[in-house]
């Protein structure tokens, strides 16, 4: 850490980690409701708990991106942040807005669009928060050095704000409603978020491996080129069977198949950089998260996405547990892991802590990753069985659900393991480690 103002990132990382725990906790609650349906039925209905699970995820990932940007941009732009005060005000506004939304949900105050359930005034507050953030980081970059990393990161972050505006447009025609809904949901996670992810990974590769900036930048351009080339028209894979014209089946199938390419490029990129880089950086845990991120994103977003992206396959699997499997592994691999990679890299620097719980953090990596992987397989098998019984054999929805009980129990078990891993990760980042442990890690021979 070279600039004092990078410290505002600490607010965002702390907020993100707290919401991370809440998100996984609510995941455990809904996982329990699925297998024991009357759990908390009076107090916390499934739909409310699910909203909190998904909204908390999105909010903490965004908070993490904000924190990552506040850490990364001063260092890249080689200048102090334009206004650290504004960044702190923005944090509290965002956190209070998120808390108000959750409390509102508990009292059944919400709108009806999935993931965009926030009442209008919360959405407007999010727009204000986004504008404060964009103003702050854009002004910082404008007065400082402009690198490929800051350019791509700004493009991604501006894109997040711009596409969020479509959440304010809610046509009464259900087909148009869904079409534009995907402009937020899809063009975020399979478009502009990938730019944020690629630029953060590029930053971490420069810091952790010591490979030349020029080399990293070339990869960054190729990755974001592939991401936008495939991801924008890849939106078509959400336009099957929702009332849109049939040609979307071709556009969606072809372009979303290519969405695997940027994720594959990220795997090759991170491993090549580590292989070529000469630096033996002491923060092994951050490197583990970075490599894990590209690999898990490739499987979760790339492979598990491809599994059901072709129109003839999706005709059978649409809206089954296959989607849930993909959703969990993709979010974990791409966006949870890139955030945790950044937090793991930045926290010791921000807190000026040499001896931190690196081993514990890596245990957290393996336990959480195992939990999410097992969960993904359980849901994938559930989805395959569901697709067959419901769509091929023509059994009724609830009849099929009863057949899936075993898989839902396994998912809950995997959720408990995931929760344990998450607690370890948060603990390792928040609590100072012993000097002895840090020494042990540093003494490990270089690869």
């Amino acid at each position, binding site marked *: 850490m070279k600039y004092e103002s990078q410290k505002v990132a600490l607010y965002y990382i702390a907020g993100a980690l707290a919401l991370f725990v809440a998100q996984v906790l609510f995941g455990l609650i809904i996982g329990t409701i699925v297998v024991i349906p009357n759990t908390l039925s009076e107090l916390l209905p499934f739909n409310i708990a699910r909203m909190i699970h998904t909204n908390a995820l999105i909010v903490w990932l965004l908070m993490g991106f904000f924190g990552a940007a506040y850490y990364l941009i001063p260092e890249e732009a080689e200048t102090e942040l334009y206004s650290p005060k504004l960044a702190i005000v923005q944090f509290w506004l965002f956190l209070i807005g998120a808390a108000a939304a959750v409390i509102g949900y508990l009292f059944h105050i919400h709108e009806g669009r999935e993931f965009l359930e926030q009442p209008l005034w919360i959405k407007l507050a999010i727009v204000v928060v986004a504008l404060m953030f964009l103003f702050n980081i854009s002004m910082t970059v404008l007065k400082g050095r402009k690198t490929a990393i800051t350019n791509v990161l700004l493009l991604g972050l501006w894109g997040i704000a711009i596409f969020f505006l479509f959440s304010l447009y809610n046509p009464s025609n259900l087909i148009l409603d869904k079409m534009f809904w995907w402009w937020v949901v899809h063009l975020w996670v399979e478009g502009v978020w990938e730019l944020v992810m690629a630029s953060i990974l590029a930053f971490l590769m420069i810091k952790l491996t010591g490979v030349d900036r020029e*080399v990293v930048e070339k990869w960054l*351009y190729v990755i974001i*080129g*592939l991401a936008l080339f495939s991801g924008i028209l890849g939106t078509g894979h959400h336009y099957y069977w929702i009332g849109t*014209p049939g*040609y979307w089946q071709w*556009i969606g199938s*072809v372009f979303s198949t*290519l969405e695997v390419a940027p994720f594959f490029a990220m795997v090759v990129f991170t491993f090549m950089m580590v292989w070529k880089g*000469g630096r033996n950086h002491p923060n092994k845990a951050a490197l583990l998260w970075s490599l894990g991120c590209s690999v898990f994103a490739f499987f979760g977003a790339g492979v598990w996405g491809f599994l059901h992206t072709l129109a003839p396959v999706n005709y059978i699997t649409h809206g089954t547990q296959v989607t849930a499997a993909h959703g969990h592994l993709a979010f974990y691999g791409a966006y949870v892991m890139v955030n945790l990679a950044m937090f793991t890299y930045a926290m010791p620097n921000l807190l000026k802590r040499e001896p931190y719980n690196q081993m514990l953090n890596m245990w957290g990596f393996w336990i959480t990753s195992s939990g999410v992987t097992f969960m993904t397989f359980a849901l994938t098998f559930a989805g395959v069985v569901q697709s067959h019984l419901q769509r091929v054999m023509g059994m009724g929805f609830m009849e099929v659900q009863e057949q899936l009980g075993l898989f839902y129990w396994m998912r809950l078990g995997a959720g408990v393991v995931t929760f344990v891993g998450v607690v370890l990760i948060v603990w390792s980042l928040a609590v100072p480690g012993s000097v002895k442990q840090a020494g042990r890690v540093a003494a490990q021979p270089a690869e």
Partner: protein
Amino acid sequence: MSDAPADWGVLSELPGNPLMWVLILGELLVFGALFVGFAVVRLLHPEMVLAGQTSLSIPLGGANTLILVTSGYLAARAVLARSTSKVAESRWWLAGAAALGACFLVIKGVEYADKAAQGFGIETNGFWTLFYLMTGFHAAHVMMGIIVLGIVGWKNSVENLETGAAFWHMVDLIWLILFPLVYLLR
């Protein structure tokens, strides 16, 4: 570090900007996938495809093939002229290439208007969906190619011209597969 800043691996050996070749590979994958899709549709519904094909105009498609190939030749001449530092001459060649590209689009427009008048739309059946998607995507690339030729004519350097010509030849190449596949092979 062993990597020199300009090292793009295998892409370094190709003329023009390496990022253009990443785009070209992506485009070939997209059109390749659509061609495979067309082959599958033809295998599943041979009568439907044949009926559609007999409604297509081979003379118009053939004329467009000659136009694009000639246009590609003019673009190649532009690169050749620029490599011997004849900037003004290269711009004339590029203008000729772009003008032929515009001719292609006009003929494509006549063809579309004719098909629409006969009642064939993108939703008519599987053949027409693919016909309009593939030729439409291709025509969009011709439009983009004309803009690219304009930009490299303006920012006139050997590397830029090679980059623009590479894109233009890609547009050319795709048509050279699309035309026989959709119009001729029956």
